[in-house]
C-alpha cells in the first residue's frame, strides 16, 4: 500500500482542479471498491480527493417526469426513494440486488458506475492482467473465468497485450443502461453530459480504460429520463448464492405492450444485460427484433438468441448463453403477463 495524501475541496470545481493537477490521484467516494484495491496494491493513488460531500445527495424531479440523482446519493437511499420505486422499479431492484446492506449505505451513485472489474487476475498483482498492467497478458482466458465476459471481449488467447474478458460488476449500471440515463460530468473544461452508453467502453485495444472519462472529470449527477412504461419493469440477477454475490447473468428490462391477449404487440422494449461484458450490455439486437412483434415466449427467446449470436464464450462460461436466454425470456414473460393483467 502506497502512502497517500488526503484532500478535501470546498466545491466540485476545486476538486476537479486538484485532481486534474494530480495525474496519479483519485477521487474518493464511498471507498467501497477503491480502498480494497489500494490495500491490494492494484490502485496506488498518491492523493485522494474526497468528493463524498461535494456533490448532491438529493434526488430531484426533472420537468419531463424523470429524475436527477445526485452523485453522492447512497445506494441504499436511492433504492428506498419512493419516486424511484414507483417510476423505475428495475432501478430499485437492481440496487437492492447489489452488495450488502452495509456497502449500500456507504456506496455512492457516482462511485457505483465506476466500479472496477472483480476479475481475480485484475485484483492479484502477481498475475498477468492487461487491464491492470497493460501488455502483461490475460491470465483469465486459460485460467479461472466462469464469471467473465461472453460478449464484446477482446479475446486473442490471452498472451497478447490486448486480451481482456473482464466484466463490469455493477447491477445499478445495468438498470441505468436500460433507462438511457445521462451522466453529468464536470471537468477542467466545464460540464458535459455523457449518455450512459458512451460512459463505459469495451476493452478494444486498451483494456486499461474502463470508461471514456478523462482524468479529473467528476460525475456530479445522473439524469434518468421519463419512461412511463418503466413502471412495468424488472431487474433479475442470477447468482451463486442468495445474496452478496456478483451476477453470473442479470437483466434489466421494461416493456411497452399494446393490445391485449394473444394479439398484444411489443410497442417498445428495453433490455440490458449484466455479467456478460466489459460494459452494461444493451441488447439492441433483441430490442429491434421484438419491436412491433408479438409478445410470445418464442419471440422473446428468438430475440435473445439473435442478440447472443455474437457471443464468444469460453469453456467455463458458455453456460451463460442458455442462462441468459432463459432469464431474459422469463423476465419478459413476467413483464408482459403483468401488462396483460
Amino acid at each position, binding site marked *: 500500500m*502506497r502512502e497517500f495524501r488526503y484532500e478535501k475541496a470546498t466545491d466540485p470545481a476545486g476538486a476537479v482542479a486538484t485532481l486534474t493537477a494530480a495525474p496519479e490521484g483519485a477521487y474518493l467516494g464511498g471507498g467501497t471498491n477503491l480502498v480494497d484495491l489500494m490495500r491490494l496494491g492494484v490502485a496506488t493513488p498518491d492523493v485522494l480527493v474526497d468528493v463524498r460531500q461535494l456533490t448532491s445527495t438529493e434526488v430531484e424531479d426533472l420537468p419531463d417526469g424523470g429524475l436527477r440523482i445526485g452523485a453522492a446519493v447512497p445506494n441504499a437511499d436511492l433504492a428506498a426513494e419512493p419516486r424511484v420505486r414507483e417510476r423505475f422499479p428495475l432501478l430499485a431492484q437492481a440496487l437492492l440486488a447489489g452488495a450488502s446492506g452495509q456497502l449500500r449505505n456507504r456506496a455512492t451513485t457516482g462511485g457505483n458506475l465506476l466500479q472496477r472489474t472483480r476479475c481475480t487476475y485484475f485484483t*492479484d498483482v502477481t*498475475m498477468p492482467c492487461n487491464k491492470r498492467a497493460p501488455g502483461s497478458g490475460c*491470465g483469465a482466458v486459460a485460467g479461472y473465468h466462469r464469471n467473465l465476459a461472453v460478449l464484446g471481449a477482446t479475446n486473442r488467447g490471452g498472451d497478447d497485450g490486448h486480451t481482456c474478458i473482464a466484466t463490469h460488476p455493477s447491477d445499478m449500471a445495468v438498470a441505468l443502461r436500460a433507462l438511457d440515463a445521462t451522466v453529468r460530468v464536470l471537468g477542467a473544461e466545464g460540464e458535459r453530459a455523457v449518455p450512459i452508453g458512451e460512459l463505459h467502453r469495451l476493452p478494444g485495444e486498451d483494456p486499461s480504460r474502463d470508461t471514456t472519462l478523462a482524468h479529473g472529470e467528476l460525475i456530479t449527477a445522473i439524469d434518468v429520463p421519463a419512461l412511463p412504461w418503466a413502471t412495468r419493469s424488472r431487474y433479475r440477477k442470477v447468482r451463486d*448464492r*442468495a445474496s452478496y454475490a456478483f451476477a453470473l447473468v442479470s437483466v434489466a428490462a421494461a416493456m411497452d405492450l399494446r393490445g391485449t391477449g394473444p394479439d398484444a404487440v411489443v410497442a417498445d422494449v428495453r433490455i440490458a444485460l449484466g455479467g456478460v461484458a466489459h460494459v452494461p450490455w444493451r441488447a439492441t439486437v433483441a430490442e429491434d427484433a421484438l419491436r412491433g412483434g408479438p409478445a410470445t415466449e418464442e419471440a422473446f427467446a428468438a430475440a435473445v438468441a439473435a442478440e447472443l449470436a455474437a457471443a464468444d464464450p469460453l469453456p467455463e462460461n458458455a453456460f451463460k448463453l442458455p442462462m441468459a436466454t432463459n432469464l431474459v425470456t422469463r423476465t419478459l414473460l413476467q413483464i408482459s403477463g403483468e401488462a396483460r393483467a
Partner: protein
Amino acid sequence: MTALSDRPTTHAPAVGSDVRRIDGPAKVRGRAPYAYEHELDSSPAFVAIVQSPVARGRVVSIDASAAEALPGVLAVLTHENAPRLGEVVEEIRVLQSATVQYAGEPVAAVVAETSEVARDAIGRVVVRYDSEAPDVVLSVDRDDLYAPEQLMAGFETDSVIGDVDAALAAAPVAVDVTYATPVQHNQPIEMHATVARWDGDVLRMWDANQGPHNLVPVLTSAFGITEDQLHVVSPYVGGAFGSKAFTHVHQLLAGMAARVTGRTVKLELTRQQMSSLVGHRTPTIQRLRLGAEADGTLTAISHEVVEHTSRNAEFAEQTATATRLLYAAPARRTTHRLARLDVPAPTIMRAPGETPGVYALESAMDELAVALGMDPVELRVHNEPARDPERDVPWSSRNLVACLRQGAERFGWAGRDPRPRVREVGRRLVGTGVAASTYPTRRRPSQCRIEAVPGKATVVSIDASDIGTGAWTALTQIAADALGVAMAEVDLRIGDSRLPKASGAGGSTGTTSWGPAIQAAAQALRERVHAEHGGQLPAGGVVVTGSSGPGEEVERFSMHAFGAHFAEVRVDRDTGEVRVPRMTSVFAAGRIVNATTARSQFLGGMTMGLSMALHEESVLDAVHGHFANHDLAEYHVATNADVGEMDISWLDEVDEHVNPLGAKGIGEIGIVGAAAAIGNAYWHATGRRVRDLPITPEAFFRGE
C-alpha cells in the same frame, strides 16, 4: 464449599441445562481480546510477507535495497539473512532455502514501524526466480499415484475384506459411480494472527490457534528454546475449523522478526494469504462401487480414493474410513492413493476424511436406492450392522436408525414420491433427499489443576481452547457440577501454554478430553479434603491435579456419533439457481452438555455442509499453480440468506463407555453427510445427478 463433601445437591446440575455463553458479553462489548488485539507495547512493529508467484522453482536473487531504504522499514528477512530454524517439518521451513515449492510461498518478510509501510515495502522487494511449469492437476490417470504408509490420525491406508470384485460381479443390482470434491478452504472470520516478543531468551506469543500446547514442540524446536522459555497465550479465537491446529509459517516468521528487530511484532495474514499459508482440504476423486441383492442387502462396498498432497508434506486425508463402519456388507474395500503436486500443504478442515468421504458414499447409496427401487431411508435401515463390520467389536452405542426414523418423522418423509423431476412450485423444481452422518468419538490426554481457597471462586486451570465453540461455557458447567458449586463460583482459566497441558481443539475431542480431566481433578480435590482435612477446605486452600485420557474402551468398543440429514432443494428451471429452504437433522451424540451451544455447533456444521454442496470451491489455476479465487468475493460460503429453516434435534443418548462424561463430541458431525442429502435432493428435484461439487447454477445447463 460444604458441597465438596457430598454429592452436589445445593445446585441444579449445570450440565445439560441451557446456559448462555459466559464469554458472550465480553465478546459483544469488544473486551475479549483476540490475538491481534492484545495491547502489549505502545509501539509494536509490523510484519508483511513477500510471496512467490512461482509455484515451482527457486529464488535466483533478491534485491531488498529499495525496501530497506523506505523510511520506517526495520528489516527485510530473506533466505539469505533470516535466522536459521532448528528442526521443523519441511512445509514450514520458511526462509531457509532458495527453493520454491508452491505459489504463495514466503520468500521475504518486511518488518516496519507501521503496517502501511510494511505493505508498501513488500512491493519494492525485487525477486528473480528460475521457474518451471507447475504440476497441480489431480487425476486418476496419473502414473505417480502412491499409497501412503498410513493416513492421518493413524488410520490404515487400505482395508480389504472378502473378494470384493467377485461380489460386485455377482450382485443382482450394482452401482459404479465416481464423485469429485474440489479444494476447499477454511474461512474463519478471524484471520490468522500472531503477536510475538522476546523478553530476553523467553518467547511470548499472543496467537490465534486451536490449543497453545499444540505449538510448543514446534516453536521450542524451531527457536532452540526450552518449554520454560516459551509462553503462548490464546484466550479467544475467532474460528479455526482445522486451519489453526498446526503451526504455520506466520508464527515462525513472527518469532524470527521479533528476534531480529528486538521489537514486539504483529503479523496478521490477509484473507488472500490464507489460501496458500494455512492449508486447504485436498480435492478428492472417489470411485464408489456398491453391490446388493434385490431386497437391498449390501453384498459389496468398494470405495477408492485419489487425493493430493504437496511436495513438502504428506497429508493423507482419511477419506474412506467412515465407509469401513457405516453399513454391513460381507465384501468390502477402501483404498487411498495420493499424488504429490506443486501445491501448499493440505491441512485439517471440518471433519477431514468423513466430510468428502461420506458425501460420496451417501450419494452412491442414494443411487443404489434408485437402482433398487427402494426408499433410501429403508435401504440404510436394512443394512444396519449389529457390530463394527471391520473391527468386529460392539458399538459403545449406535443410534443411526433412530436418527433416520425421527428425522423422517419430523421432515415429513412418509409418502415421498421417489420419481425425479415431477414436483414444481412456481418455476422451481422441488426435491428431497436424505443422508446419514457419522463421526468418531475419541478423547485425548489432558490435565487439569484445581486451586480451592475458602471464600473464593475455585480456580480451574487447563490449557483448553475455545475457538468459538462454547468451551468457556461448557467447561465451566462441567467444573461447577464436578465441584458441586454454582457456575459463578468457578474461575476457569484456559488458552495459555503455562496452564496444565491439554489436547487442542480438534477432532470433536475438546469436551470429551477436557471435561473428564476437570472431573478427575474435582474428584481428587474431594478425596484430598476428605482424607487430609476432615471434609472441610482448610484456610490455606488446596491444590490438586487430575488427568484423563483414552482407556481400554478404545479396544473394546467401536465409538462413534451418528446422525441423519433430510433436505429440501428447489432449483430454478430457468436459471439453475439452487436453494435449500429447509433441512431436518437428528443427531445421536451422547450427552449434550449445553443445548444452546450444541445447537450452534450442529447448525454451523449443517451450514458448512450446505456451503460445500452449493458454493465452496477453490480453483487451482493450472498455468500459474495458485488458487485463483482467493478472496471472499469469489470463494463463496453460504450467507444467512442461503440458510433456510434448520430443524435440529438430538436423541437423549446414554453411553457409559466412551468417557466419564458420556459425551461424544459434536463439533463435526453436523457437516458430515449434509452435502449428500442436498445433492440427493437435487437429483430428486431435477433428475440430474451431479457428481462433482459444488452444485452451482451451471450444473443445470450441462449437456444442453
